[in-house]
């Protein structure tokens, strides 16, 4: 791995982790959309670096796809939804506790990904970042009982899995990548419509109000 490649991977991975932690710290919907755009761009940089390093034209094309979907389309969907919602509907837990949890989860991710790092190539060293994103995404989903926050958390989980895939094997086969990307975009758009329905039906996106169905 050349110095430029190592720097590109480190830059991308660092930006991914930083944006995830900031998402826990600044949970408002508007800043979430911006941070997700940055995170998507960081992932695209990572994929582009790997593609250029291996001279893999397919991977370079996938970097463009990642940029279009994860840095533009998905953040746009979330930003346009948050614009429809009244401001300040998402009180969260204290930012300090969230950051503490993020630190714990990142440590867990570094420990848990040892078998992955051992089994993958030289870019595998950054794999724990991907696993951290997955765990932090779950934290965002579980932490606040708010529909939009769960949507944001889901996107972070997905970014984390994509990071693991690109760092371990340079991504899944292209046809699978295309299918997965399409599925994820559709799920995000469906969740966005459901957030609107929850807002219209319940007068807010607080999931504590969803109490119709229980045993």
């Amino acid at each position: 791995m050349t110095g430029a490649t190592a720097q590109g991977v480190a830059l991308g991975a660092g930006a991914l982790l930083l944006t995830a932690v900031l998402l826990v710290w600044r949970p408002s919907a508007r800043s979430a959309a911006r941070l997700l755009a940055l995170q998507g761009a960081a992932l695209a940089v990572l994929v582009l670096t790997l593609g250029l390093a291996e001279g893999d034209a397919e991977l370079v094309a996938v970097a463009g796809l990642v940029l279009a979907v994860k840095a533009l389309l998905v953040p746009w969907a979330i930003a346009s939804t948050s614009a429809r919602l009244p401001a300040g509907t998402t009180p969260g837990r204290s930012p300090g506790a969230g950051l503490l949890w993020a630190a714990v989860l990142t440590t867990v991710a570094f420990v848990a990904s040892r078998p992955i790092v051992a089994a993958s190539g030289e870019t595998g060293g950054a794999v724990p970042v991907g696993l951290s994103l997955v765990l932090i995404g779950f934290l965002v989903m579980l932490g606040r009982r708010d529909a939009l926050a769960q949507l944001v958390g889901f996107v972070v989980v997905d970014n984390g899995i994509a990071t693991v895939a690109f760092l371990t094997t340079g991504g899944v086969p292209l046809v699978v990548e295309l299918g997965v990307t399409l599925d994820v975009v559709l799920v995000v758009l469906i969740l966005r419509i459901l957030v609107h329905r929850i807002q219209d039906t319940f007068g807010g996106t607080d999931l504590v109000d969803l109490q119709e169905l229980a045993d």
Partner: protein
Amino acid sequence: MDLLARLARIAPTATATTLLAAGVGLVAVTTGGDRTLWAAGGLLRVDALSAYLLLVVGAVALTATWGGLGPPREPHTEVRFSGLLVLFLGAMTLTLLADNLGVMWVGIEGTTIATAFLVGHHGGRAAVEAAWKYVVLGSVGIAIAFLGLVLLYAATAATGEPTLSWRTLMAHPDLIDPGLGRLALALAVLGLATKAGLAPMHSWLPDAHSQAPAQVSALMSGVLLSVAFYGILRLQAISDLALGPELMRVMLVGGGLLSLTVAAALMVAQRDYKRLLAYSSTEHMGILAIGAGIGGPLALAAVLLHMLGHGLAKSTLFVVAGRILADRGSTRIDHVQGLLADRPALAWPFLAGMGTLLGFPPGALFFTEVAILFAGWQQGLGWVSLTTAGLLVVIFAVLARHTLVMTLGGGTRAAKGPRAVAEAGRWAATLPLAAALVAASAVGFAPAVQPVLESALTALAGVR
């Protein structure tokens, strides 16, 4: 009603019929000779197992779509509803035909996408809530499964040519790095178990399956759960070869027993008959998991037959439940008392379906459940068989009591109306349901069934 809406109305039934015919044809082609058909550069294939599952999907889908054909909707709604149903059937077909595990994943996630708006179709607070839980939990579960597949892909990378092809992985299980493969397969099965409605990841299921329209509930409970479980069977086959049977046995038997326990506990005090049927699906997925965990030809053949028998019985029951709801305007068990006296054309199919589901002979579920319990005993897992049998007895008692309350209990509450006319129409509509239940009994006796199941198991073992 315009032409497009009229076409849309019959499109799901036509698709189901086509799938059933294709399933029967492909079963005939693949049975006996270990034949596998390939397409799309090796991404898609039909072996005896996928052919059999295609037959199951077709048979259950025909019951659900034909039997569940309600009154005509608004043209616009009709087109959208039917379009999503056809897409749903297509996604399940892709899941069954994919050899590449990544493509299989895309198909399973496609079922969530197609059904997201079907679950919330009726609108209202409960439907929106059910749809939200369904899509969020389903997508998270399936995301975990994808992480597992990504890691499985990485676990084969050391050999130079990473792969997600099921056939290649089965032919060369030594390609898989054991440490990483263990984590990968455990995560993938955990994720698919969410879609299969196994405890402890089942919490979305009773909400989604009780809120969805009858046709959709019938398809989701009757066959979508089994399609997700089919994915687990494929992964288990790889795991058993590469890592030995212990990992999957612990996961599946544990998840299965927990599913039976949770289902039994939540059925006892259940007041909603659609939720009752939904929990029964978690129960039956638990039986499948226990059967697969026990393993061996007897238990696995029983698992495959159980998918068909349960699918036919459960889709029939959800269709009848939809008709009862339309008649009584309530999903509460105590609002439906005395069905046998008031609405015999609803009560009889309900009783017959419930009898099949409860495992009365000659229904296939009697034989499959006995076979799974017996196989457990044979494999030295007597405690699993005993615990399962105990939980099944509890569930039998609970379901039988609720069924008796609905059909026999209480006084008549029926609204008087043009009753004879409505009853005649209802009897005519029981034809697809009767056909499904007769089939659910006949498969236990048909001599052609044994070679079909044997071929499917040969395909699952990866022997060619």
